[in-house]
């Protein structure tokens, strides 16, 4: 017997052709016979590939459930995943780390004004903020700092409220002592340093952020000027509960230094940078376009070689030697402030940036009771900031 559609050999009792799947005459008769209804419903002579339908239905259900949940919870839906990730990373490292990435880089982005550059900097952290524990009071602190000091992005993330408040107090006092320094700092953020004890806090005058490798003829660039707080210290209560001198050694920083006062030291670096920009008629280096690209590159090289800071120290040293009838050299003068203030580079030259930062640190901690050497540096700085 042959199938009428494909002419394959079939058996007399087949309902369907084994080759083309079409009904045979017997199969057609079987389907037409009303007494076979129950048999057909139970799967005889009918195609019931149930599992595949179930799979498709379940897939649709997953998609709609995911869309619904995302609509209801937004990015908060992923908080449990972030929480688990944090726990795993913290377990691996053995201490609390920051989930926030401060080293993102973006390419081929159209940024056409300073305002757009600032918005981009804000957006980078806003997109990550859902990964931080929700704390309204902490968010308020961040907002106040952003608002009061024109810092586009402040992100403490998982720093405790108490610690964040202490840091804010430092920043508040520094901006009160030096009111003319607004406008160049773009970020204060918690971060993971390359090695856990690399630094406690760090000032980065220029972090190339957007369109780093793109041609300036095609894309404008964005730089961040930021103060970074090392998570190894600021997220770990067991570290913060120890005196800072236990970690860095006695007399490394100026007397009475605390974990939070190191932020004043970093703002000290920032103040040098602001003075440097001011002397070159620049307010910031955030937005880079064709017209200021070369200038900013040249200036940053000049700032990095330390000559500018050394000139400030030299000026202060001359005043100091005249006032106190001494004849100190640059290094001995810096050493009167703190050990950190007198650190040298690999070639044995004084790192004048650190001397200025430590003098400002001293001013922050002791006001006009600071060391006479710091006082002379502060005088020069204040005059240059006017």
């Amino acid at each position, binding site marked *: 017997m042959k199938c009428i559609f494909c002419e394959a050999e079939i*058996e007399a009792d087949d309902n369907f*052709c084994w080759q083309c799947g079409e009904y045979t005459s017997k199969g057609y008769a079987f389907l037409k016979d009303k007494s076979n209804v129950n048999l057909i419903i139970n*799967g*005889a*002579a009918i*195609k*019931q590939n149930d599992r*595949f339908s179930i799979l498709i239905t379940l897939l649709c259900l997953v998609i709609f459930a995911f869309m619904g*949940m995302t609509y209801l919870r937004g990015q908060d839906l992923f908080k449990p995943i972030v929480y688990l990730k944090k726990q795993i990373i913290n377990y691996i490292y053995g201490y609390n780390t920051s989930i926030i990435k401060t080293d993102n880089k973006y390419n081929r982005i159209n940024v056409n004004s300073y305002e757009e550059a600032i918005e981009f900097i804000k957006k980078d952290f806003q997109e990550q903020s859902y990964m931080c524990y929700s704390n309204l009071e902490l968010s308020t602190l961040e907002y106040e700092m952003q608002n009061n000091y024109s810092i586009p992005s402040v992100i403490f993330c998982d720093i405790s409220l108490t610690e964040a408040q202490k840091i804010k107090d430092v920043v508040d006092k520094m901006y009160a002592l030096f009111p003319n320094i607004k406008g160049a700092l773009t970020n204060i953020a918690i971060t993971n340093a390359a090695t856990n004890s690399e630094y406690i806090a760090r000032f980065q005058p220029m972090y190339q952020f957007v369109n780093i490798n793109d041609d300036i003829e095609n894309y404008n660039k964005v730089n961040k000027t930021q103060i970074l707080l090392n998570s190894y210290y600021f997220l770990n209560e067991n570290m913060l509960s120890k005196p800072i001198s236990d970690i860095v050694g006695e007399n490394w920083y100026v007397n009475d230094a605390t974990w939070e006062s190191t932020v004043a030291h970093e703002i000290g670096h920032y103040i040098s940078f602001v003075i440097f920009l001011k002397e070159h008629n620049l307010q910031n280096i955030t937005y880079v376009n064709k017209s200021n690209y070369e200038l900013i590159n040249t200036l940053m090289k000049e700032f990095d070689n330390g000559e500018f800071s050394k000139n400030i120290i030299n000026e202060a040293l001359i005043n100091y030697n005249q006032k106190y009838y001494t004849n100190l050299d640059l290094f001995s003068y810096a050493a009167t402030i703190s050990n950190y203030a007198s650190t040298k580079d690999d070639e044995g030259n004084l790192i004048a940036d650190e001397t200025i930062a430590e003098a400002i640190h001293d001013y922050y901690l002791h006001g006009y009771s600071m060391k006479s050497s710091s006082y002379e540096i502060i005088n020069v700085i204040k005059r240059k900031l006017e």
Partner: protein
Amino acid sequence: MKICYNCKHDVRDSDIYCRTCGCLLQKNSHYIMINVCIIFVVLCILGLIALFVASYLVE
């Protein structure tokens, strides 16, 4: 000889369609894959529900 997944009747190894119910005969691996996918999707649904509930519990 093998068995039709749909009607459980015996079919020959060379058959493309079941002679009794007309169902397209697939390899065993096809059915195994669908079953595994169903288990995976069910786990996804359970995971999503757990994630949704946990998102209210984690600060």
